[in-house]
């Protein structure tokens, strides 16, 4: 099976936020929750870069390790998913996550966190593939339909790449060789303990 990863080629990202919008629309993500976001570094200064970031579906995911109810699991495609039926909304995965991926709907008093929501790599949850229950809890399951995550699919500059780690690394390498410089595989060292050697 593939080892699914995200790669944002920061040299190409134009901060259009279409990935953010596409994600929200595709999965009917509620107000206040952003499974994906674009962060601009050195904003307005020479060397400014924008990077689209979501759950990186880490190797040895910290969220899964710290969860007090073990609601996380890793699919055969190495996608890190969780069960909203088991999640208690304690917030520990947010403390552990290096990318700030877990989000919580604000429900109830005293800022109580609802059940955690995060990027599913467009592959739903533990429910039956493409079922209504799955859609309501986790959004659409594009992987089950043979498609890749929508954020990357519709990225206008093809900055955001999604797919098997080897394949997207190869695409990125070819780009680097062609244009003569890299833009850094943001977050790869933190998420996958490796970066792309050119």
């Amino acid at each position: 099976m593939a080892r699914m990863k995200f790669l944002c080629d920061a040299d190409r990202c134009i901060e259009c936020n279409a990935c953010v919008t596409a994600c929200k629309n595709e999965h009917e993500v509620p107000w206040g929750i952003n499974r994906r976001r674009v962060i601009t570094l050195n904003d307005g200064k020479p060397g400014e870069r924008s990077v689209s970031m979501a759950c990186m579906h880490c190797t040895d995911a910290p969220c899964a390790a710290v969860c007090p109810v073990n609601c996380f699991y890793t699919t055969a495609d190495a996608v890190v998913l969780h069960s909203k039926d088991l999640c208690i909304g304690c917030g520990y995965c947010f403390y552990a996550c290096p990318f700030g991926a877990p989000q919580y709907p604000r429900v109830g008093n005293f800022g109580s966190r609802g059940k955690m929501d995060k990027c599913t790599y467009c592959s739903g949850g533990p429910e039956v593939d493409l079922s209504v229950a799955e859609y309501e809890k986790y959004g659409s399951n594009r992987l089950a339909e043979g498609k890749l995550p929508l954020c990357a699919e519709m990225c206008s500059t093809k900055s955001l790449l999604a797919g098997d780690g080897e394949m997207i690394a190869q695409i990125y390498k070819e780009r680097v060789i062609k244009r003569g410089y890299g833009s850094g595989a943001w977050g790869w060292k933190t998420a996958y303990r490796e970066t792309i050697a050119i």
Partner: protein
Amino acid sequence: MRRRLTSIALLAATLALAAPAVAQVRAPDGAPNPTASSVNEEMLFKQDPKIHGRISIPNQTAANLIQPQGREWREFRESWMPWIGALAVLGMIAALGLFYFTRGRIRLEHSEESGKKLLRFNSFERFSHWMTASCFIVLSLSGLNYIFGKRLLMPLIGPEAFATLAQYGKYAHIYLAWPFMLGVLFMLVLWVRDNIPGKIDWIWLKQGGGLLGDAHPSAGRFNAGQKMVFWMVVGFGFAMGATGLMMIFPFAATDINGMQIMQVIHSLIGVVFIAGILAHIYIGSLGMEGAYDAMGSGEVDLAWAKVHHDLWVKEQQAKTASGPQLGRGQVPAE
């Protein structure tokens, strides 16, 4: 002046040397490299342990791109905390067990004053105590569940039942924190004046407080051991409240790293607090005959009181003009 000229010349020479090095990074077609001066991950991590930028969505707390400090927090929570927690709680239970089997139950010493009752805690004091105590029991069990639940309970009852239980545990933990904090405040106001440490406490401690050996050192309304419990409850209670509030209200007072530190403090103090309260429960029930009445009915046996809180009894008797003691139904003048 000459010095300045020299430094300018040096700077110019450096720039002249450096310039070709930058210019060399070019695309194969000769185009200049736009990323030569751009930010990169390693450089940003050298400046700051978190990579922070600007974000256009309303959630400004999402402006951190990479914040790897969660790894240290994970290390603490998964590798250290279960052992620290087990050591504190089981260690205290073992120590109390050992104490019980060597020292045994501290018996009530009968005298001619046995049977006469003296009011020790009025109904509001008992209410404050039991409100705090019942919240504490639920808070500590639901708190321990965050650490040990998935290791001990989940294999026994299965993930679904455990998740339901943990969900109720989380609600209980968050909601009962409020009456708990209120109870700590009540007890602080009610008992702080009787818990100021003094010279008598030092003597009490040196004599082993009557726990070790058969001495019955003098004590006021609260002996040094009880004062220690009082200040532990107040100190730890405030610390647990403060750190807990910062986690209940994410980003209200601290950022992500602050919340990680709050969780570490909250859990470390939590297990020590539980161990301390286990000792308090032991001596207030099984460990000493007659002690439970103080918080049960509120009235203690005069014989017991004279042995354990002689100065307090004298004080109470002095307050009632003629009588040697306060009978049932009479409220002490305090």
